[in-house]
């Protein structure tokens, strides 16, 4: 059977499964809608958290990014797993004991202030919307690459699926579909990884294969380092970022992970404080399976790519190369006219993306070897090949000649990863609106039924906005998704940790810290990364403060937040007695009771 038929079967079967689960797990009350009734087992919650966490970016893009970044890619691996240690040790048990529905709830109550609550709601909305737009885009890409469906239609199909299980089941529906999605995505990631590891190193465990030997008896990593050096790239196992920048980015990603509202909220769904701790451990264990296999996949893919394309004549190149060239994610221009692909260090293009030329009838213009012609090759560089980083995971099974059903499985896995994360984020958005804004601020006397209706309306609204972002992606989305972590680290993380560990922290300190932290982060981001349309272009790397990249600046913004919070709180009155009692009570685990809406 062809890849396309297999893909329809896999995608159809998994979607049917998600539908079935969402009908079975309908929500009848706000408590079921927001926190799945509060009785989810630690294992189910761990799986759901893992699926929630591993987004289209983790599944589709991360291994590809690492394969181009080498050692520098470690920032994602350590950052996105080390954050769970902070989450488990510093946040999850205490927030569970506190026992409310949302993160702004905690901030609002702990800092006895609606201003603090509103600041938290705004931060949660900014972080969640930027994130969810990326997921919808991921859904669109999978549909268009594998099923030859237009990206917009792919996004609409994805939106409808999420709508059904999020609208009907709320957190309850989402939790149980995420359990299924975890299974699909981890299976889909590991099967090709195992196949390729076995092919290249004779060891079926990718984590070990990465350090294994290839057929000529040299270690795989040494071989890749040699290949890199020969072609003029930096050694794979050394990086090109400064040690400080790697440190700063890793720290920002860790603190940002621990401050993401859609991850924190998962720990409200278990029964006891004890379960919250255990659940964080299980979640990280389940995540670590993918995160330790991904760098191995990067090494396999990188080696395979170089060996397949370097100095190969275009006429003998395998079909996958031409397929991806047709989708515009690979581009080649024969600068020296030898008909062979020169793949060495340096940007092959003038600009970031290839610009393809078209005939008057809309067909692509083809060159001497039937390759697609691009109008922006960079004549200064010897390198002739452009490869989009996103294709490494998707194309990997094809590059390694794996059977069609494996390729189809990867498509289903990519969709599972994108949909599960999107659903979790959409729920945070809808809860922020129906609970933190309507119930807590605008109309406190709303009935449970009314609030449930508001939550459902909010989720429909959020899905439509997210879908529009997916179809018409604003240019800043890609840049901002990476920075969402910096924003989380600069705002939420210090406010929550100080709220638990510093009894003297008061509302003046926390609000000042959050406002200063997020403002300075936004300022740095705009100044050095995104620019401001029509006003200024981003400033160059040489102007960075202490050589810190915008991605790593979250670490500095976080430190500033903490310093401001502590200083301001010591200069203003101590928090009231009842708030100090709340802090004492969340520090001991007994009597957690059920999460309450009041």
């Amino acid at each position, binding site marked *: 059977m062809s890849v396309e038929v297999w893909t329809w079967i896999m995608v159809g079967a998994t979607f049917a499964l998600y539908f079935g689960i969402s009908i079975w797990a309908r929500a009848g009350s706000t408590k079921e809608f927001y926190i799945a009734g509060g009785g989810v087992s630690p294992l189910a919650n761990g799986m759901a958290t893992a699926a929630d966490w591993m987004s289209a970016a983790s599944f589709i893009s991360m291994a590809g990014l690492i394969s181009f970044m080498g050692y520098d890619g470690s920032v994602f*691996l350590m950052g996105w797993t080390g954050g769970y240690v902070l989450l488990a040790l510093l946040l999850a048990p205490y927030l569970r004991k506190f026992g409310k529905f949302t993160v702004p709830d905690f901030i609002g109550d702990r800092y006895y202030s609606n201003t603090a609550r509103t600041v938290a709601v705004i931060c949660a909305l900014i972080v969640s919307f930027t994130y969810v737009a990326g997921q919808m885009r991921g859904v669109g890409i999978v549909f268009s690459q594998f099923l030859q469906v237009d990206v917009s239609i792919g996004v609409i199909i994805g939106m409808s699926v999420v709508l059904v299980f999020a609208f009907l089941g709320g957190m309850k529906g989402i939790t149980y579909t995420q359990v299924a999605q975890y299974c699909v995505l981890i299976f889909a990631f590991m099967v090709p990884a195992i196949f390729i590891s076995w092919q290249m190193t004779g060891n079926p465990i990718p984590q070990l294969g990465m350090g294994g030997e290839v057929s000529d008896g040299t270690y795989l990593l040494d071989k890749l380092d040699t290949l890199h050096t020969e072609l003029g790239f930096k050694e794979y196992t050394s990086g090109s970022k400064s040690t400080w920048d790697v440190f700063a980015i890793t720290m920002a990603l860790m603190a940002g992970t621990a401050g993401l509202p859609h991850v924190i909220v998962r720990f409200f769904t278990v029964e006891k404080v004890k379960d919250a701790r255990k659940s964080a451990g299980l979640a990280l264990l389940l995540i670590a399976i993918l995160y330790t296999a991904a760098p191995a996949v990067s090494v396999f893919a990188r080696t395979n790519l170089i060996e397949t394309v370097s100095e190969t004549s275009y006429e003998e190149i395998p079909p996958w190369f031409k397929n991806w060239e047709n989708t515009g994610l690979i581009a080649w221009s024969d600068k020296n006219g030898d008909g062979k692909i020169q793949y060495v260090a340096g940007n092959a293009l003038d600009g970031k993306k290839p610009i393809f030329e078209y005939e008057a009838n809309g067909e692509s213009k083809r060159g001497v070897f039937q390759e697609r012609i691009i109008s922006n090759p960079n004549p200064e560089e010897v390198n002739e090949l452009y490869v989009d980083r996103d294709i490494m995971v998707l194309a990997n099974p094809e590059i390694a000649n794996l059977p069609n059903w494996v390729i189809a499985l990867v498509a289903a896995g990519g969709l599972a990863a994108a949909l599960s994360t999107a659903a979790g984020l959409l729920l945070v958005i809808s809860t922020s609106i129906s609970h933190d804004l309507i119930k807590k601020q605008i109309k406190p006397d709303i009935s449970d039924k009314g609030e449930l209706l508001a939550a459902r309306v909010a989720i429909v609204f959020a899905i439509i906005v997210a879908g529009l972002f997916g179809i018409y992606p604003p240019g800043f989305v890609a840049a901002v998704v990476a920075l969402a972590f910096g924003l989380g680290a600069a705002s939420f993380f210090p406010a929550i940790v100080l709220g638990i560990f510093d009894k003297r922290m008061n509302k003046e300190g926390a609000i000042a810290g959050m406002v200063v932290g997020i403002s300075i982060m936004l300022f740095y981001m705009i100044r050095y990364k995104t620019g401001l349309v029509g006003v200024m272009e981003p400033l160059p790397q040489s102007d960075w403060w202490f050589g810190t990249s915008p991605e790593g600046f979250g670490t500095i913004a976080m430190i500033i937040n903490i310093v401001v919070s502590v200083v301001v709180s010591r200069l203003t009155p101590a928090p009231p007695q009842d708030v100090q009692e709340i802090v004492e009570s969340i520090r001991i685990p007994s009597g957690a009771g059920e999460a309450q809406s009041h």
Partner: protein
Amino acid sequence: MDDKKQQHAKAYWKENLRYLIILLAVWFSVSFLAGIIFKDALDSIRLGGFKLGFWFAQQGSIYVFVILIFVYVRLMNGLDKKYGFDD
């Protein structure tokens, strides 16, 4: 809270903080020290096909993180029992 319970809560919190400091020191060492700051020095040591610093950055630190959380779960379950806060 009565006096005895309050004293228990204080002692519980103190021990908890001590655990946190130790565990976070390990967390910091495997990632920021072994995987980043001392990465180049550790790279001269080999672990099979891996250079050690690189291994910590892309594999080892993650394994240690998982173990850390489970150690924490065990320690805290014990602490809950010791002070009667398990229910």
